């Protein structure tokens, strides 16, 4: 039995960029040889979930009824433990196959067959371990929600307005490709008729927030603007804000309740007697969330009440996003000496037209297929990479937390 201490996980974090294969930790317990591409501490945690699950099962055997929160937790536990069991099974398969390899006077054709099979099982093992890793991380709040994408031009003048429109089209096409229903909630065109001053896209698909939140940040474009006659490349930018959509529905347990005084609601209306004296419909509403200072103004509808409802939906989304950012920042803080790689104020991606290149600065991915990205077809490749990088970073956080606790 060989045992290789491959301590990638304990090292500096930049080494996490190593591929999963090289980051594989060889780990053995008793007669099992684990060849699991997962940090031993995470494996240990997964194993401990088994005991937790058993406790739950005992409770249920005793006739205890689980509350909705517990039953959610129970489902998640079951899923994690299933994955862990599957990993054990796959590891056993590998070790059995390896025995074939080490047998004396083994038939060479059998050896090559076994080697091939080992490769297949290893690939499956890697996928399962990756899934388990995601399951072990604390869940991202609201990731099962629909989302709102707000787009705004940044530096770069009119070119930024045009780029903002390009991004909106990219997301609409992406939704069409995935079969997600979307709706342009608001859109203000640039006075020239080309480009946008702002736009908000609602993606109604539940779970779209979990995916699209990776698009949040500053997107940078480098190209020769249509308006540039000397052929110089300009750099401009657009900001993408992604918010989870939360309805004003009191039946929803995740809906936040506001304390008296927490909200300040201003309705824009000329002072005076009001009531029967006045029939103008100045229905604009401004809601201020006093503790955070977040302000939402809406005047799209003729009904004050509907404007108020719309404003509340947006306010709830903004607060949820703020909450999530704080949670992630807290997780990051637990990692010592680590500069955050997902800082939202940074530019996250560059679209370079002269080189037909797209680079995502968070995961270091570069694709030479700008058109494929902008028509939504290859956006998934980028988001997959960014999501995987985030999982890696968060797994590192979790490991350092487990370490500091033990």
């Amino acid at each position: 039995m060989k045992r290789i201490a491959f301590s990638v996980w304990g090292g500096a974090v930049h080494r996490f960029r190593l591929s999963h294969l090289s980051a594989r930790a060889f780990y053995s317990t008793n007669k099992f040889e684990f060849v699991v591409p997962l940090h031993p501490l995470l494996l240990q945690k997964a194993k401990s979930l088994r005991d937790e699950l058993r406790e739950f099962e005992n409770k249920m055997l005793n006739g205890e009824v689980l509350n909705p929160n517990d039953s959610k937790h129970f489902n998640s536990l079951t899923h994690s433990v299933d994955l862990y069991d599957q990993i054990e099974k796959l590891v056993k398969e590998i070790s059995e196959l390896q025995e074939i390899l080490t047998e004396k006077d083994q038939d060479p054709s059998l050896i090559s067959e076994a080697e091939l099979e080992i490769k297949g099982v290893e690939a499956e093992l890697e996928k399962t371990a990756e899934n388990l890793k995601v399951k072990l991380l604390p869940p991202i709040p609201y990731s099962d929600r629909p989302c709102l994408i707000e787009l705004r031009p940044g530096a770069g003048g009119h070119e930024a307005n045009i780029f903002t429109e390009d991004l909106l089209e990219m997301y609409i096409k992406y939704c069409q490709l995935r079969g997600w229903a979307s709706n342009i909630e608001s859109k203000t065109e640039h006075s020239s008729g080309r480009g946008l001053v702002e736009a908000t896209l609602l993606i109604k698909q539940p779970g779209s927030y979990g995916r699209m939140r990776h698009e949040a940040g500053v997107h940078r474009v480098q190209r020769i603007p249509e308006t540039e006659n000397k052929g110089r490349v300009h750099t401009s930018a657009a900001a993408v804000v992604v918010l989870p959509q939360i309805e004003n529905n009191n039946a929803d347990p995740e809906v936040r309740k506001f304390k008296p005084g927490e909200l300040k609601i201003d309705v824009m209306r000329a002072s005076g007697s009001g009531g029967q004296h006045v029939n103008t419909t100045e229905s604009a509403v401004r809601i201020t969330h006093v503790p955070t200072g977040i302000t939402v103004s809406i005047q799209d509808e003729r009904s004050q009440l509907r404007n108020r409802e719309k404003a509340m939906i947006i306010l709830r989304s903004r607060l949820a996003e703020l909450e999530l950012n704080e949670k992630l920042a807290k997780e990051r803080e637990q990692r010592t000496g680590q500069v955050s790689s997902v800082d939202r104020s940074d530019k996250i991606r560059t679209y370079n037209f002269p080189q037909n290149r797209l680079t995502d600065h968070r995961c270091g991915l570069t694709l030479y297929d700008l058109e494929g990205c902008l028509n939504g077809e290859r956006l998934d490749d980028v988001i997959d990479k960014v999501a995987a990088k985030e999982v890696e970073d968060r797994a590192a956080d979790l490991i350092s937390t487990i370490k500091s606790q033990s």
Partner: protein
Amino acid sequence: MELPVDRWAGAVEERAKHVPLQYILGSQPFGELNIKCRPGVLIPRNETEEWCERLKEVVEKIPDKVSVVDYCTGTGCVALSMATLSNVEKITAFDIDESALRLARENLKLNKDLLQTPVSFEKGNLLQEKHPKLAATLLLSNPPYIPEKDFNLQGGVEQSVLLYEPRSALVGDLEFYTALAELLRTGSFKAFVFEIGYREQALHTKKLLPAWTCGIRTDSHGNVRNVVGWQQEWNALRSMCDELL
């Protein structure tokens, strides 16, 4: 959006002449309802929408079935808004004006998918000498409440209201609250909510109803907007009041 392009120019001209936007577009949203508007019938106000929505929250939680009478119903907005609640079983709404009753019935049809309770619109004059005894739980009314002397620009009434909305739905004062109090004394009501424009109208109502607990509700612009009253079982209405009388 709400008007075809070829009517935009005309609409702008009309609006410049102070024609109310609701008469030009022909409608006003009211809570979840869409209320048709026509010259000759008072336009539903934001303030009315506001107290109706607030009242719905209270009525919805009343454990018993609730029946409603709405006087001076106009477009029918208050009555129809109550008809969206599932524990309201019967609504009778009165108006003195035939054209208002016609419009109210059209609004009933227009919003029928949102309504849970039948509403009957009937002719009735609040100021008549004798009323039949009304058997219902909740009495609502948005009677004319601008005193004659205030029905001008100095009195805070907008040009558009003075020029285009029906005077009969606007000009009135304590006499209407006296009549409403009479309905309460002879009927079987347990609670009432009336819209008001002046504090005296609330004080007057309370004076006529010594046996009732009464309060004043202020709207979101800080103006007095309702006088609210209740018997024991409807204590929940207290939450609508900013001040008890």
